[in-house]
C-alpha cells in the first residue's frame, strides 16, 4: 500500500491533463445535476401515490411503495450496468442511473414528509370539497417544503458521489478517467483525479449544508 501511495506522489499537474480532468468533472457534475433534477420531479408523483392518507390509490399505494423500494434496494452500480447494456457507454447511462437512484431515495423520504405534514389544513380543505390534488398542492407541499428541499440537497450530494463511481462501469464522467488511470498504471494521474473528486465532494457538502441551514 505504501508502495502504491509512493507511486502516486506527486500528482500529475500537467495543464493538458488538468484540462481533461476538468471537463470530465464537469460531465460528472452534469450527470449528477440533471439526474437529480429529473429524479426529484419524478419522485413527487411516486411519493404522492405512496403516502398514507394522502394517496388517491387507497390500499393500492403499496404498489407505488414497492416500486420505490425496488429502485432503492438495487445498488446504483447494478442499475448502471443495466443502462450501459441498454443505451451504451457514456453519460446517458450515468444520468439514467442517477434518475432511478434519486427516485428510490427521494420517493421514500418525500412520502414520509407528506405524511408528516400538518393534517388540520388538509381537513379544512377536504371539508369544502377540495380534490386530493388540490389538497396536495395547496396544503401538503407547502408544509412539507423544508423537508423536501433538505432531501433534494442530500440527493444531489449523494448523486455527485455516485456519479464519480458510475464511471468505473462505463457510465461516463470522471470515474471513467480514474479507471483508465489505474488500468494503465498511471498512478500520478489517479492521485490528481482522486484529489479533484475529494475537493468537489467536500465543496458540494459545504454548499448543500449552507443551503440547508437557510431552509426554514
Amino acid at each position, binding site marked *: 500500500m505504501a508502495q502504491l501511495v509512493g507511486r502516486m506522489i506527486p500528482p500529475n499537474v500537467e495543464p493538458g491533463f488538468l484540462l481533461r480532468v476538468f471537463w470530465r468533472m464537469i460531465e460528472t457534475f452534469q450527470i449528477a445535476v440533471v439526474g437529480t433534477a429529473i429524479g426529484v420531479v419524478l419522485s413527487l408523483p411516486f411519493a404522492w401515490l405512496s403516502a398514507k392518507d394522502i394517496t388517491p390509490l387507497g390500499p393500492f399505494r403499496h404498489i407505488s411503495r414497492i416500486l420505490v423500494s425496488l429502485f432503492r434496494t438495487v445498488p446504483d452500480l447494478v442499475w448502471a450496468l443495466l443502462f450501459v447494456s441498454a443505451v451504451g457507454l457514456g453519460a446517458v447511462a450515468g444520468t439514467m442511473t442517477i434518475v432511478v437512484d434519486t427516485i428510490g431515495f427521494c420517493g421514500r423520504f418525500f412520502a414520509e414528509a407528506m405524511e408528516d405534514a400538518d393534517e388540520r389544513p388538509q381537513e379544512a380543505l377536504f371539508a369544502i370539497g*377540495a*380534490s386530493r390534488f*388540490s389538497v396536495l398542492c395547496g396544503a401538503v407541499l407547502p408544509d412539507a417544503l423544508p423537508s423536501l428541499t433538505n432531501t433534494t440537497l442530500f440527493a444531489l450530494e449523494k448523486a455527485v458521489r455516485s456519479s464519480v463511481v458510475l464511471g468505473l462501469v462505463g457510465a461516463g464522467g470522471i470515474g471513467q478517467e480514474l479507471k483508465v488511470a489505474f488500468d494503465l498504471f498511471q498512478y500520478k494521474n489517479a492521485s490528481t483525479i482522486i484529489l479533484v473528486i475529494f475537493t468537489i465532494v467536500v465543496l458540494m457538502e459545504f454548499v448543500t449544508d449552507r443551503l440547508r441551514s437557510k431552509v426554514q
Partner: protein
Amino acid sequence: MTAIIRAHDLAKSYANGKVVFSSIGLNIASRERVALIGSNGAGKSTLLKCLIGLLPSSGGEVVTLGESFRSAPSVAQLRRIRRQIGFVFQHHGLVSRQSVLTNVLQGKLGLPGGWRGWHHSIAKQHWREEAMQALADVRLLGKAGARADALSGGQAQRVAIARALIRRPKLLIADEPAASLDPAAGHDVMRVFSELTQEQAITLVYTTHDMEHALDYSDRLIALKAGKVFFDRPTAHVTRADLKDVFDA
C-alpha cells in the same frame, strides 16, 4: 323565511351500540344565527356533521340547502351542499407556511375552477380583490402578505373566517370557533362572525360551550342533553337558569 336545514327524527349511533343522539328534529331558517350548546360529548359536532352530510346518520331524514337525504347524501348532493357552505373549525387550519392572502384564496378550492386558489400568484384578479375585501372585513387587510404562522390565535381564526366567506356561502358552519382562544380574542372572533353573517345574509350555525358566546351572538339556542334536544328556543327567551340545567348532570 326559507328553511336552510330541516331534520326529522335524526339519530346517530356507532357500531359498538353507543347512541350519540336520537329523535332530533330541528328547522333552521335562512339568515338565522343558531348556537348549538351542550356539555362535552353531547354530540354537538356530530350533529353538525350529520346535518351537512359529512358523517352518515343512523336514521331520520335531513334536507340541507334543498338537498334531501337519509343517512348520507350522494356524492353529487354532497358536492352541491359543500359549494354553498363555509367552514370554520376550532383550529383555524391555515397552511402555516403560506401567506394570509393565499390562505384566504384557498377558500375557493372545491368550487369550479377552484384549483387557481392553490396560491395567490395564480389566482384570478377578481378573486384576489375578493380576498382583500374579505381580509378588510375581518380587519386584517394589513396582514395580507404575512405568513400565517406569524399571526396570533385570534387573527388566525379571523383569517379562517375570511377563507370561509370568500366562498360566498349561504350557510356558515363553525365548530367551537373560539374554544382555543383567550376570552378577549374569543369575543372578537364571535363579534366578527355575527356582524359579517348578518351583513352578508348568511345563516350561521355554530357549536359552543361558552354561555356568553351563545347568549350574545345567536338568535336561537338549541341545547343538547343526553342525546336529545333539551330545548330549542329564541335566545331572548333563554335564561341563565335554563343554561345551567343544560350542563348539570
